[in-house]
């Protein structure tokens, strides 16, 4: 993807805005659940942290995939990323199993050989990021 500086900046800003919005929604849920208030600065800070954390995640996932001589990031890479935190690893493994089983069900429903390979990469990554922003217990 060849993008000029301006386009890149626009894309980055759009991404950041999307992350900020999502973090806002999640913080609202937590606020209702725990009966606390989040200042705007707090939400902005959390979204910035999430954004940069995703940067790290992306680089590490790329590295892990390349390490296994693959060019596609799989759930295995995501599990390796979450290895350091036990609870997170448990959660990710559970989620990936759910995804795998649902994929299997879909395949059985379709009964088609030519099913596009749906990697559980993006949901997994989002889960990681979401989990991160919720309890941020990563060492």
């Amino acid at each position, binding site marked *: 993807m060849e993008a000029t500086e301006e386009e890149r900046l626009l894309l980055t800003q759009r991404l950041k805005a999307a992350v900020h919005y999502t973090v806002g929604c999640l913080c609202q849920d937590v606020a209702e659940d725990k009966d606390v208030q989040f200042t705007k600065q707090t939400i902005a800070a959390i979204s910035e942290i999430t954004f940069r954390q995703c940067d790290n995640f992306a680089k590490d996932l790329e590295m*892990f995939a390349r*390490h296994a001589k693959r060019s596609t990031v799989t759930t295995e*890479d995501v599990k*390796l990323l979450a290895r350091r935190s036990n609870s997170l690893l448990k959660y990710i493994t559970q989620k990936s199993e759910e995804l795998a089983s649902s994929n299997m069900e879909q395949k059985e429903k379709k009964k088609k050989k030519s099913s596009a390979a749906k990697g559980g990469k993006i949901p997994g990554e989002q889960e990681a990021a979401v989990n991160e922003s919720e309890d941020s217990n990563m060492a």
Partner: protein
Amino acid sequence: VSRRKTSEPEIASSLIKKIFSHYVKMPVARDAFKIVQKCSEKYFMQLSNDLEAYIHHAGRKTVEMEDLEVLMRRQGLVTDKMPLHVLIERYFPLEYRKLLIPVAASGNSVIPSK
């Protein structure tokens, strides 16, 4: 490929002391050294666990140089601005450097051959 020979279950405490006091550049209490030694034991445990995960991930049974590089990248020691070779040159004595970094030799051969 391991960074240091640890045939015994632990590194000699005198060596840990030497290295630590070389970098810390200020007096260190005796119990602090004990803690440092405990930490280094724990560090090696974690190191082996991580390496095991990485070689398992690559579908191998042998630890290789690239696993170490992945590990150090993950630890934030190796970055795009700080390649592994630079770290080796900076922290390793010459004889180890020769073993790790390929050097062109006469007769169109490169040492080490890998």
